[in-house]
């Protein structure tokens, strides 16, 4: 294929035929040059639209979907200028999407006022798919005069991360907000869970009188309940390239995203104020908020999250802790590396910290064929990781060591459930 060199090629053929025709004094060779000359001149003199007036409109069947959900994209390109002999349209499909059906490119004649429609179905993995423009190239029928341009035609599609629903995570941050919620505060007042008894004051509800205690003490005694309030929760998602493990197109980071989505969904459903920090590329901070709107913001932020290998964020030392109110609950989601222990232990001094750590060793192992050496290597690596996690546990950080072959709710509820917290507090003597 000669592409734009077709002119030069045909010109050379004509020149050679003429030169040889004259050199050998053969009119028949000159006559062979004539069809080529006609071809060249036809291309030059036939009408050609130099400045096409094209307008493109894009319609998506949805602007927000979960991963692997089909989305139908419709594209209409209308010619508002002169007739175009041969137009080629190529819609640039964002890299995170896969074409599964239909046409994303077309070739045709486009008369003035006519339009070409494209319709195709895509699906994709988590991310923000953005269409910016379509590539349009046009030429005469002979393919000798060519032009290419880009027609702006934007569109965006959020592909939300898939996440399992978590039903139980018990947290006890030091600071809570004034609004009532689901986080127990270790303070007596209005609530559901029994907290203790105290002397009855006029105005207390009579239905809360504790008759048995009153019989013992011989004075009016009323029940107190534990106050339940909403808390500030900061979710920190580790997006550092150095903690990433990817095998056969499967990424450990996607598990981190999934767990961040699950926990954000759970905490917001409990009425808490949740913020999100994606640590890796830049300080991608979603300001804390409540409710469904905040859930949408967090999911959008998680849909956009990408790994990064920026040197400044190589360690957790540059974690912007000022973003989180002192005494609030932090949930760090990271596969963890050895350097992270000190920073997390320091964080523990100011916050209640939970670490959800997708296990990179088991993740990688699940894709490898089982051998004697693999078992030995896994044991060594797991021992090393166990030391790292036990350092965190000793500092009072609650750790979920998540085997990614299991569904997230199982290890989360085992490690962060109500009974586990009660058990830990009993052992520590803080209940």
């Amino acid at each position, binding site marked *: *294929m*000669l592409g*734009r060199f*077709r*002119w*030069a*090629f045909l*010109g050379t*053929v*004509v*020149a050679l*035929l*003429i*030169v*040889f025709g*004259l050199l*050998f*004094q053969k*009119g*028949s*060779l*000159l*006559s*062979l040059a*004539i*069809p*080529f*000359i*006609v*071809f*060249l*001149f*036809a*291309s*030059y003199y*036939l009408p*050609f639209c130099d400045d096409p007036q094209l307008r493109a409109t894009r319609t998506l069947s949805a602007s927000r979907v979960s991963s692997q959900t089909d989305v139908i994209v419709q594209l209409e390109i209308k010619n508002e200028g002169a007739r175009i*002999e*041969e137009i*080629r*349209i*190529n819609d640039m499909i964002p890299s995170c999407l896969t074409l599964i059906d*239909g046409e*994303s*490119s*077309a*070739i*045709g*004649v*486009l008369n003035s006022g006519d339009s*070409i429609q*494209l319709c*195709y179905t895509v699906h994709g993995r988590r991310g923000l798919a953005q269409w910016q423009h379509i590539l349009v190239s046009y030429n005469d*029928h*002979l*393919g*000798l*005069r*060519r*032009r290419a341009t880009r027609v702006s035609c934007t569109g965006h599609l959020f592909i939300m991360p898939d996440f399992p629903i978590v039903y139980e995570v018990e947290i006890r941050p030091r600071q809570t907000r004034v609004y009532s919620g689901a986080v127990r505060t270790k303070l007596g007042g209005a609530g559901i869970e029994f907290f203790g008894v105290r002397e009855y004051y006029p105005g207390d509800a009579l239905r809360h009188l504790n008759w048995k205690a009153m019989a013992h003490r011989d004075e009016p005694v009323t029940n107190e309940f534990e106050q339940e309030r909403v808390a500030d929760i900061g979710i920190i998602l580790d997006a550092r390239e150095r903690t990433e493990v990817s095998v056969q197109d499967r990424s450990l980071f996607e598990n981190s995203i999934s767990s961040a989505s699950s926990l954000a969904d759970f905490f917001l459903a409990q009425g808490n104020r949740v913020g999100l920090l994606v640590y890796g590329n830049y300080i991608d901070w979603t300001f804390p908020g409540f409710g469904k709107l905040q859930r949408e913001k967090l999911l959008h932020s998680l849909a956009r999250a990408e790994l990064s290998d920026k040197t400044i964020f190589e360690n957790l030392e540059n974690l912007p802790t000022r973003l989180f109110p002192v005494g609030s609950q932090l949930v760090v989601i990271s596969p963890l590396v050895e350097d992270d222990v000190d920073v997390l232990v320091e964080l523990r001094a100011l916050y209640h910290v939970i670490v959800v750590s997708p296990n990179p060793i088991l993740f990688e192992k699940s894709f490898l064929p089982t051998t004697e050496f693999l078992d030995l290597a896994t044991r060594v690596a797991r021992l090393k990781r166990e030391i790292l996690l036990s350092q965190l546990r000793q500092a009072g950080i609650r750790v979920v060591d998540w085997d990614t072959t299991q569904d997230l709710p199982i290890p989360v509820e085992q490690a962060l459930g109500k009974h586990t917290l009660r058990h830990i507090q009993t052992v520590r003597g803080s209940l």
Partner: protein
Amino acid sequence: MNATLVARACIALALLLIVLGGAVSGHGAVALFSVFLGGLWLINTFLSWYSWSTFSFLGLLICAALLSVWQAEWWALSATIFLVSAWDFDAFSARLKEHHKIEHGIEKAHLRQIGLIALVGFILGSIPLVWRFSLALSGALLLAIILIIVLVLSLRTGGRTAG
């Protein structure tokens, strides 16, 4: 209508004309060589190896030029007309194959235009074969220079518009 089919038909016709021309002028070797090149080109159209079509086209054009020198001018001119058409249709079908959707009418419009150009090319090309005149060397040189200047100017303008 299918552009690839038209390209194959044009290749076959050009090949037939060159072979007949070779047989008529008594140059069987050229006919044999053109059969090899034409066969290769036809195979390429089935395998969609479009980059080889230009080489086959050039080879067959040289065969046609040789025939025109060996007194088989009409065979050569007719074969050249089909060769140009085949070369163009081959490139056109390559452009079509790059796209998922082909709008109705483009192939017919292309065939119409190429057919017209081929007809005009044949009529104009047959004029020197019908109307013969002798040219002095100085006249021939002058004609050659004028033709080449016109061609270069045309190519420069064309090259700019080719984008």
